[in-house]
């Protein structure tokens, strides 16, 4: 198991955002996370790299382990290096394509230009962006298309050599063709990484996820193989949500 969560509860002030979440996330799989807005999907995801801590009124109880080690006892910067994240809106830093990808490695102490070049090339190839940008590594990242920017953000995350990559609705601002490319990339990445994909689009989960978790009002309602969730869910609420009867 990559991640194991036991009785996770999260509060923001008086808002109880997650209630008694217990689950395991196996390595080298894609876990899809679905649920209506405000059901706690992002909060769940941000628990895994401790990004919730940036919010001042955050509080949590329960046990979250990455490869057996309590994440709250791990050095937070090291944890976030191991657990990368791609956000909903592609947000390249105001730098060139190359510098965006080299950014993380530089920060973590990769000094020589040669080594940086190797890392950038590998990361861009892993994100299936290399062929599209290899001749214009020096152009500002903002000149790329939306889909390319999102894959650039994936490359930026891959460049720090994470074990897990978290995606928070990574395709919400993209057209269907860019979305297909991102999904394709995710499917190929799963050989080397563990992926957690929060999506507001149930079809996306059915296309790429191995297992799918359904959240409702901060509770994990059901977690099972994607096929099972989409054909024969055991909970009525899962069935209603997937059938579009609420949400």
């Amino acid at each position, binding site marked *: 198991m990559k991640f194991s969560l036991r009785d996770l509860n999260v509060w923001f002030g008086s808002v109880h955002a997650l209630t008694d979440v217990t689950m395991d996330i196996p390595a080298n799989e894609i876990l899809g996370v679905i649920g209506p807005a405000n059901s706690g999907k992002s909060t769940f995801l941000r628990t895994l790299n401790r990004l919730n801590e940036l919010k001042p009124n955050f509080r949590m109880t329960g046990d979250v382990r990455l490869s057996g080690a309590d994440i709250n006892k791990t050095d937070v910067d090291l944890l976030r*290096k191991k657990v990368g994240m791609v956000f909903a809106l592609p*947000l390249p830093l105001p730098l060139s394509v190359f510098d965006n990808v080299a950014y993380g490695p530089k*920060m973590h102490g990769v000094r020589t230009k040669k080594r940086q070049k190797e890392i950038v090339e590998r990361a861009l190839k892993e994100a299936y962006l290399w062929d599209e940008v290899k001749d214009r590594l020096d152009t500002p990242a903002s000149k790329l298309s939306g889909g390319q920017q999102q894959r650039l953000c994936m490359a930026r995350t891959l460049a720090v050599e994470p074990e897990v990559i978290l995606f928070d609705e990574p395709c919400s601002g993209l057209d269907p063709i860019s979305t297909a490319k991102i999904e394709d990339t995710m499917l190929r990445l799963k050989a080397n990484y563990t992926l957690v994909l929060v999506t507001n689009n149930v079809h996306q989960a059915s296309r790429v996820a191995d297992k799918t978790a359904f959240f409702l009002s901060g509770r994990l309602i059901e977690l099972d193989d994607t096929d099972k969730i989409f054909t024969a869910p055991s909970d009525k609420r899962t069935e209603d949500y997937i059938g579009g009867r609420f949400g």
Partner: protein
Amino acid sequence: MRRLKEFVLQKIVLLCGVASILFVALIFLFLVKEGLNVFKAVSPSHFLLGRSWYPISEPAQFGILPLILGSLLVTAGATVISVAIGVACAVYIAEVARPAVRETLKVGIELLAAIPSIVLGFIGMVTLVPWVKKIFHLPTGLTALSGSIMLAFMAMPTIVSIAEDALHAVPRSYKEGAYALGATRWQTIHRVILRAASPGIAAAVMLGIGRVIGETMAVMMITGNAAVIPHGILQPVRTLTATIAGEMGEAAVGSEHYYALFAIGTLLFVISFGINVTADLLLHKRRS
């Protein structure tokens, strides 16, 4: 009827806008007209680069290089000090401090802005000047450094509040993006936030300095007021502004001395205009 009202109001506002520009233009013209007269007595290069300012000796000498250098030295010192402290303070307020501390600090800085400059000058004279004298073992504490420190304090409120705005305007997602890559808080601040906010911070510094470059009385009180070419920041200097303020009362209207002071005024006008325009350009760059 409503149309008419709109029309009239619009024209009135336009008139006010035009009037303010007109006034500035007239002031500038007046300064230039009076100032140019000095060049009947002394060539532009002797005026700007002359090393002696003896306006009332016989023959009078109108070289303002010592004054320019005095102003430069005091302002440069103030810039270094206020940038270092002001930016650090803005970062602390915007990124590090807890909400309660943040509010207290903001109030404190607004209070600092509310102290009249002459009062700061007075406090500087009785506290800062003796310290400088003692710490550096100088014959007098009335030095360019004392002026720089005091001007830095005057520029600080402007710098801190505008720089803090610039830091707040950095998209939150940049910050989260950096943290998500495993950046430490310090790496995030100095590689992402400060970098993204740098045009705004530069503008903050320029506006802060623009505000104090015309500062006169307080500087006159604590810089020693000696119109000689300074060889270091620990020497007495005299600034352009202090010269005008100190000598305008004695200069006979229409004398060469009088015109020389106007020429100094013109120079000051051009300098602070240049600084403000640059700051404006920087702020616009940030918006677009």
